[in-house]
């Protein structure tokens, strides 16, 4: 089993060792959607390292004694597990291909020591669809092969944060089946970023794309630390059917050689962080992702002025929308009885004119 898997050479057979996030990046890339280039360090690398260094046995013993209902016990075991992992010396059979892949990425991006985002992408053998959304760590603006290796360890260790352990326990996922794949992806420095749903999350309207957008990196929107601008775009007409501009106080941006959370300048707080054309470009990409996967999607996107290519918009993630997609759609009773429905429509004729809910 390969230890390195490039997004642009996605192989469906690797999906069990890529985790949800890296699988989606591979699928988006191979579908021709704009995704920053990168590769995954697969979960097989994780497993092989853990087995060959003895960390696996130590972890098994450590977790066997764990009382998952006792926060103090979880915290102690978690702390010890993370120490064990961070102390690993990565073996050359992994370190060398990793350094080589990183160098290739740098060549591809024409940047030596290209800044990358190092992202956790957990897998769970008995739960292939487990999303683990937001359960594990992501590291931004990592430069140099050595630093990338160190951050792979940090992603691995984030499989044993207190909340990740508790999450698996709550969801009844087997500890032994959990493993971590790690994505290494060219870092974008967006002027604005956010999320998009390919339906209106307030009313399930599948003709709409809802976009949340804020200044800087998408972390502020994803974590909810900022009230984003909100747009609703009609998929078919491309018209922006709703536009709410919020006061955006916080942004994640690069300061020197690290990403910081900072206050947004006064003069940018209350203006839209993306133009109407950019709103439509984001909606267009989200729609393409939805069409590719064949079901409503929840995507992360970013607009980086330095990106070459269409509209400067890239996708950083796409996963199936789960709330409305599982609800059966209900329409008005009698709607197929033409006369009955005409009478109801006339009685309720103002319905269409009032601002639709959501």
């Amino acid at each position, binding site marked *: 089993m390969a230890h390195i898997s490039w997004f642009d050479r996605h192989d469906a057979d690797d999906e069990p060792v890529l985790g949800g996030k890296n699988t989606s990046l591979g699928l988006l890339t191979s579908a021709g959607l704009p995704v920053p280039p990168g590769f995954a360090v697969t979960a097989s690398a994780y497993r092989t390292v853990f087995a060959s260094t003895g960390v696996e046995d130590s972890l098994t013993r450590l977790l066997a004694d764990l009382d998952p209902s006792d926060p103090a016990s979880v915290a102690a075991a978690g702390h010890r597990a993370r120490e064990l992992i961070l102390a690993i010396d990565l073996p050359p059979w992994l370190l060398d291909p990793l350094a080589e892949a990183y160098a290739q990425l740098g060549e591809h991006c024409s940047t030596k020591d290209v800044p990358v985002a190092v992202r956790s992408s957990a897998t769970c053998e008995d739960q292939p669809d487990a999303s683990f959304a937001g359960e594990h760590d992501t590291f931004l603006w990592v430069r140099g092969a050595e630093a990338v290796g160190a951050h792979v360890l940090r992603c691995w260790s984030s499989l044993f944060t207190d909340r990740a352990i508790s999450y698996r326990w709550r969801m009844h996922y087997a500890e032994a089946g959990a493993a971590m794949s790690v994505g290494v992806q060219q870092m974008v420095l967006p002027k604005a970023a956010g999320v998009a749903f390919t339906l209106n999350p307030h009313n399930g*309207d599948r003709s709409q794309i809802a976009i949340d957008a804020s200044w800087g990196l998408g972390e502020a929107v994803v974590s909810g630390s900022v009230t984003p601008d909100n747009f609703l775009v009609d998929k078919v*007409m491309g018209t922006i059917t709703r536009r709410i501009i919020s006061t955006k106080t916080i942004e994640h941006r690069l300061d020197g050689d690290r990403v910081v959370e900072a206050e947004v300048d006064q003069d940018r707080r209350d203006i839209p962080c993306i133009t109407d054309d950019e709103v439509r470009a984001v909606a267009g990409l989200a729609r393409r992702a939805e069409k590719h996967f064949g079901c409503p999607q929840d995507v992360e996107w970013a607009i980086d002025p330095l990106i070459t290519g269409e509209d400067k918009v890239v996708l950083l993630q796409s996963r199936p929308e789960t709330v409305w997609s599982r609800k059966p759609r209900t329409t008005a009773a009698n709607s197929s009885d*033409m006369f009955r429905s005409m*009478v109801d*429509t*006339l009685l309720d004729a103002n319905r269409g004119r009032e601002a639709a809910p959501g």
Partner: protein
Amino acid sequence: MADRFPSPFEMGTPAGAEGWQDLYAYSSIFSEDRREYEDSMFWFQDGVHTPEVVPPWDATILEYALIALSQYNTRHYVIPPARGVDVRILNGYMYLSPVGVSDPAEIESRVPEFMERAGYYFQNWDKLYAAWLPKVRALIDELEAVSFEPLPNREDMAVITEGRGVGSGFELVASYNRLLELVLKLWNYHFEFLNLGYAAYLDFFGFCKGLFPNIPDQAIAKMVAGVHVDLFQPDDELKKLAVLAIRLGVDEQVEHGTVDEVLARLDANHDGRTWVTAWEEAKQPWFNFSAGSGFYHSDKVWLENLEIPLGFIRNYIAKARRGESLERPMAAVSTERDRIVAEYTELIGNDEDRGTFEAKLGLARTVFPYVENHNFYVEHWGHSIIWRKMRDLGGLFVKEGFFADADDIFLLQRNEVPAAIFDMYHSWAVGIPARGPAYWPKEIDRRKGILDVLRGWSAPPALGKPPEVITEPFTIMLWGITSDSVEQWLGGAQEDGGLTGFAASPGIAEGPARVIFSADGISELRDGEILVAPLTAPSWAPVFGKIAATVTDVGGIMSHAAIVCREYGLPAVTGTAFGTKTVKTGQRLRVDGNTGKVTVLD
């Protein structure tokens, strides 16, 4: 915010307009006799058809239109939740009131009748609609055949030798009666299909909003809209004439001088004569086209004001020379319509809804050609003849010294005209002076004075108590009166001078405003300006090629401005109520046809 508009009984008469009530039918005036009923109703000013003071005879048309609309709702098809639309005139302005059926049991009891009656029309639509056009064409021929001849000194010998038994006085009386009868018939025909067409459209509209709560209104309109529409034909004819002039190389000869000069110049050469022949062919019927709503005798008809179409042709020639295409992109419109339908269909979650959607769309498309096309035949062609014939009759009165001008006839109520005809007939028959020449000139002066005062009165957009829900299809579709617009009127214009209305045609545009109150002003429009008008008329079509966006005071998503702007791909916000009152020419506006918002930028 107030919860009701002023009562019609609180509205005083402007000084100098006393006695205005006598200019209109007694049954169309607010009165103490029906105060309790009238005060309980909601009345909105009909800015779509009659934004200005209505001359006495002109009121006939809207009264006949509404009686026909109402009778089809109440007596023909038994629309379950709606009766007719009542009409009153206040200080010369027409106010309408949709009359609903409020008792749920009564609505329910009307459903079987509606199903039987409307159902028959829906099921036999193609057959019945095929009969409509010949019927209305025959009616137009009958209207054209009405003639008002001067009373001769002696009856023709033929009257004697053929033993006709009736003379010219009788024919005069009969011709006027016939004209009125035909006007009423024209409006009966007008509503034979329209109510049902709107009901089917609204049903599809409501279903789409149920499936996709945030779907833009204009998306629904685009799915239903026809590609070829008779109402656009007059404009298309002008484009064709512009292209022909260039092709024949006579464009420079068309470009300057009066209509007569141009035609004389062209008549002198072969290619010119070819163009004149095409021009003459286009006239009938397509120049029976009103520059206004068609509801005023003063609306200019192309046929009688040939400088209007000629001016538009000149604009088109200039445009074509700059290399701009004049063609409406029919194929693109059609492809786009198919794409929109296919994509929404794909987004529907289950087969049952998809089937219902397709059935409703099918019905809406079956009924919609009528909705789009009838207007040319009735409001333009039919009305053009009616006004012309009435002017012929007015001319007879001018000859006999009753009036100074043929148009003075429009200052008489429809039921006063027979009295004046009788006076003229009587004086002719007996051989004595008529009273008319002493009576009418001063009466007409008095009436003109009253109407002038009334024109200066600012008519409130609505009167009385707004209903909880409006169920009358026309009120929503055509007049664009909804709970939202009513609320907006109650709230008055926004403090920042911004406006909201219907998102009638998508897109966003910025530019300087040009406030235009009538067809006479449209020549002032410059490229890139935003047209702000009480409403627009089909004959304004040529200006839509140069403006950046449209804002109107009145009208819904099926109003003329909405239809044409979608056709031309221009943003439009309709039914803003206060557009022409708030915006000044030259102010920069941002018109958002996606959200229905108009912002004043400076």
